[in-house]
């Protein structure tokens, strides 16, 4: 999928000023809140952390607390399942299917 990174390699789901589009499958199926808590350093580039440690790409790592991102993703998936079940129920009702 396509994401967008700013000059600090932070990820976004929408384009914006100063953002560069990159392709990655790391975020396939992930919700925007999850994606936007990550930093993505493309191959061939490097990022220097505030303490001076250098990380070379390709690297993908959360800059927000991963627990928050994971919780957001789980809630996103729970809602998706609920929507699918609702849609399935409506189809079953329309077809007169009884369990």
């Amino acid at each position: 999928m396509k994401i967008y990174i700013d000059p600090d390699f932070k990820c976004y789901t929408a384009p914006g000023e100063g953002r560069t589009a990159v392709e990655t499958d790391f975020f396939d199926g992930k919700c925007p809140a999850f994606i936007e808590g990550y930093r993505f350093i493309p191959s061939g580039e490097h990022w220097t952390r505030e303490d001076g440690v250098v990380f070379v790409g390709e690297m993908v790592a959360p800059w927000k607390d991963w627990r928050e991102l994971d919780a957001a993703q789980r809630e996103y998936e729970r809602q998706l399942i609920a929507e699918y079940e609702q849609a399935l129920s409506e189809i079953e009702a329309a077809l007169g299917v009884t369990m």
Partner: protein
Amino acid sequence: MIINMSGGGIDNLKFRVYAATSLPASGKENDVCIITSTPIFRWEVFPVAPTWESINGWVYIQNAPAYSFEYPNVNILKKNIIWLFFVKCWQYENGNWSSKDAYQYRNGAWVQFSTVFRATINITYPAGSTCKATCGSTTLTAPNTSGTWACAVPNAGTWTVMATDGASTKAETVDITQEGQELSIELSYRFYLFMEGQGMQNGFNFEASLSSYTSADNNRITYNNNCQLWGAFQIKPNIDMSIYKSICFDVDVEATWQSGSYSLVYGVGAYVSSNFHDENQGTWAAKATSTVAGNPDRAVYRVDLSGVESAQYVKFLTVGTQGYVYNIWLE
């Protein structure tokens, strides 16, 4: 500072040296007052800074070294007048020479000729830890566990700075050589999961995904994967990553096979119960991928864990490449 002692006879060449915790309102001409709470055991004047062991309380007034015939450190100008040029005052306390605030009473006023040694070690250490700085028998302790400490050191020397959090410790030494010096040091814990020559850390297990491609002994982990299958390993159990900022793999890539794709994928994430590979994208919390080719120099491959505040498994995957992992640590 030039002192001028005049008068008749040898008795008039005396001057008083005494200790006080604060400067008196006035004194006698040529009095030397040293601000200290340590009683003066004995004092002397000498033209070099003291470096040797002494007796607690000994005071050492340093006069300027003789630069040349024109600039001696003691100058007898005429009868009964001796000029001394005081530049520093030291006192031996708890095994170290400490510089002191010191004053001379001259022409009806106190004039400072020595200041307490002031140097700063700006220390960054893992928040929640205790931090100490030690030189000889002097130990300074950080006032809190915030993770930063501007440590004002009272004397030159080799200072050992140590952070401690439970069983994790990290110490480094810094040399303070001059007054006013300011330097920075960062301490981070390095916890070895696998160490060259020692193997796996006690309490942790190496689990190969495809044992024919990946194995470990006490010296190193070997991966030998010249095909397109994923040779991989995980380390069990999971580890609380919240006190670490990086996972590091010390890797020597020996060869890569140009006929196909090749890569190393490494980082932390959820446990995968059976043959895991990079298609398990959803199982990673943080990872990096290297497609370095050929036979590069042994190097450390890092992944940032700044945002990983939870327990995760360490994972390492290979495809189309052969080499060794000598060390794996968290820091």
